């Protein structure tokens, strides 16, 4: 799993490249736990190259979502592959998290 960051004035974009499992999700958790993350208005997660997610990866997002909401930070996923989106759907997480098709829609959100 490779995580690339891009920060603009009020938006932090994290690009995920690889597979998010019980081994690699530790890296993502450390990124999202950084206090400065909560200073942005939006945290966008680019999932185009995210090829796999397990419950450990989902757990990272589940565990940070409330803190983001409390701090007024919007968490938006975009460019998600069907097989990854399907894992969100199996649990009903697609109804609880914001997932949009494209970067343009994520930016406009």
């Amino acid at each position, binding site marked *: 799993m490779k995580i690339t960051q891009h920060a603009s004035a009020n938006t932090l974009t994290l690009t995920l490249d690889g*597979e998010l*499992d*019980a*081994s690699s999700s530790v890296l993502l*958790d450390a990124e999202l736990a950084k206090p400065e993350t909560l200073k942005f208005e939006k945290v966008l997660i680019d999932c185009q190259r995210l090829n*796999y997610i*397990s*419950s*450990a990866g*989902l*757990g*990272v997002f*589940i*565990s*940070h*979502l*409330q*803190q983001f909401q409390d701090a007024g930070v919007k968490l938006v996923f975009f460019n998600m592959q*069907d*097989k990854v989106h*399907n*894992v969100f759907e*199996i*649990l*009903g*997480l697609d109804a*609880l998290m914001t997932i949009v098709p494209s970067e343009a829609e994520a930016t406009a959100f």
Partner: protein
Amino acid sequence: MKNALRISCSRRNLKVVRDFVTEYLTAYQLPDLQLNQIVLAVDEVVANLIIHANSEDESQHLDLALDVRNKQFGIEIFDDATSSYAPATYHDPDLQEYIRQGRKGGVGMALVNRIMDRVEFSTQGNRNVCRLYKQL
């Protein structure tokens, strides 16, 4: 076709397990979503056995054996932990509550139970065995 695998109880081996299942199932040309679901269910059980049952003790091993018979996928996962998973303790997760609590874990078995047709945990001799089945 290789249908058995032995791994040590390290999280690094989750990728090895996923590749093993994917490679075996390639011949069956499953739709992407179904292949990913089966790989995911196996990954979830193996992760639980590595992390919870065996406390990531790399001197411990898991043995996996899989096959497809009459269009049914089946996998057996053996381990030697002194404690075994008790399916009766399973509760369907309340995700909104998990989000409120900031919980990191607890949704893996929900994925396994929703994806697979049959999920069995038992003991065989001195070993624990988990069996997963899914019609293809």
